[in-house]
């Protein structure tokens, strides 16, 4: 059972805290821009793409994926903070189901990530990309379902880690590899076969791939998307459903 009032207030709390923490807002916006313009800008001169898009344009969908990945995971990891500082007890003794808590956390991760992805998306004209209004709607949709899936994944992680010391472990051994093995920085089809295996169990791969379809639909060269668009969307939707259920179970078990 899901209590709407509980989901609403959990989301409202995350938003209030997010708006108050200016440094968090700035850093989550600044990080993708640094990657896009400093890494992407530099590499553009080095990497011949052999197609219509420049390297900087190529990584744009990946950078959107990065924004979503970091914000979603970070948002869900706040469960660890709540446990550490005792606030989680207030939630756990309330007459609401554990699943409402998970839905509330996943929804706040989804909304916060999507808002930030939209801010980054607004930079597309500076990259010489032209994206139509229909594609923009599609990008926002893909961002939202991807964010929900990743925030649910974050809840699974948060259920298994107890203290905030584990935060750097999660960042270095789970989040960063997920980013590099998603086709965000280089096409999946150019990776060694073993690494390709990892990309295929990574929901971010399919999110980034769907965003590539929407960002440069006409690209045919080595930088083109690796999977069919429909497959991408179905995988993300399936991942969202499966991960939120696992998240719910894990949270129920470990509190």
């Amino acid at each position, binding site marked *: 059972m899901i209590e709407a009032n*509980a989901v609403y207030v959990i989301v*409202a*709390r995350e938003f209030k805290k997010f708006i108050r923490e200016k440094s968090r807002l700035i850093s989550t916006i600044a990080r993708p821009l640094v990657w896009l313009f400093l890494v992407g800008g530099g590499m553009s001169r080095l990497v011949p793409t052999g197609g219509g898009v420049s390297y900087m344009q190529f990584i744009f969908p990946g950078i959107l994926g990065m924004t979503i990945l970091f914000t979603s995971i970070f948002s869900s990891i706040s469960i660890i903070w709540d446990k550490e500082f*005792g606030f989680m007890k207030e939630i756990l*003794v309330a007459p609401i189901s554990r699943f409402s808590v998970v839905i509330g956390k996943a929804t706040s991760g989804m909304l916060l990530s999507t808002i930030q992805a939209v801010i980054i998306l607004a930079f597309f004209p500076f990259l010489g990309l032209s994206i139509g209004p229909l594609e923009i709607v599609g990008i926002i949709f893909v961002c939202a379902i991807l964010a929900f899936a990743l925030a649910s994944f974050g809840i699974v992680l948060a259920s298994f880690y107890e203290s905030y010391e584990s935060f750097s472990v999660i960042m270095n051994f789970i989040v960063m590899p997920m980013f590099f093995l998603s086709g965000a920085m280089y096409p999946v089809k150019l990776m060694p076969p073993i690494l390709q295996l990892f990309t295929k169990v990574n929901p971010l791969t399919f999110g980034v791939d769907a965003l590539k379809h929407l960002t440069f639909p006409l690209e045919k060269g080595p930088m083109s998307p690796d999977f069919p668009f429909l497959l991408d969307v179905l995988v993300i939707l399936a991942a969202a459903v499966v991960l939120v259920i696992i998240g719910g179970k894990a949270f129920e078990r470990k509190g």
Partner: protein
Amino acid sequence: MQIIKVDNLVKRFGAITAVDGISFGVEENTIFGFLGPNGAGKTTTINILCTLIAPTSGNASLDGHDCYSESAEVRRSIGIVFQDSSLDKDLTARENLMFHAYLYDVPKAERKKRVEDALQFAELRDRADNLIKTFSGGMKRRLEVARGLIHRPKVLFLDEPTLGLDPQSRQNLWEFITDLPRKHDVTIFMTTHYMEEAEVCDRIAIIDKGRIIESGSPQELKKIIGGDVIYLKTADNKKAMEEIKGLFGIEASEKDGEIFISVPKGEACIPEIIRKIGEQVLSVRMQRPTLNDVFLKLTGKEIREENASPGDDIKEAVRSYRRRHDRS
């Protein structure tokens, strides 16, 4: 009517038995105190009553609902103030209260009013929009108690409510708590290991090593000691002791140059002594029994203090066990 009923409750964490077959009942709209040293099983019992953990065996019910199988009903009728603060320190006082009102589905029309009332009650109206991280320990506790009452619970649990507070804040908090049953029509279930603080309770259960060793009102418990103790300094202790034995038939003892006798009614006995052996008496003082004396008599030891003690080891073991297994 008994609002809380506990029958032969047992909770084991691996090899450790935290609660070892306790039974008790709590009358509606009274203050019930659970008294015992750290690691005695107080918090474990509260966690079972609050539906946070499942008992190994036995029953606990609250307002007629089983704390394990009917946890949803139980949760609606309880408020809890945990040992450690469970406020969100990055939100304001008002936001914390509002969060609670939503979480407990307080009707929309009443939310604002109940939050304002709680702020008023906690005497924090002028700090309502300040972040919790700027609050003192006493302010946080008052706010937590007020928050626990927002959804009009039938029972309010207070787990060591004064832990870590300075004496002044403690005193204020107690005045605040003793008024609750009358003002808010609520039953208070509290734990403490400060004996003197348990005096405000209507009934007390003394718990040690997971078992209830005695229960009753503070007055009843003090009777276990057998009345007041009178201390006398006299010119000749030996002679005085003999005279007391001859006159009152009471065996007196001597300690640190003072003789002392235990009598049921000290205030009536003192004039009697002065009349009979007045010339020898240099000084006289009387001591009423404290709950500390009761605990000492029942367990043969002082209640352990807050610092590291064998109880803390058990607590730590229980915590780490729960991290690994429980949380059902």
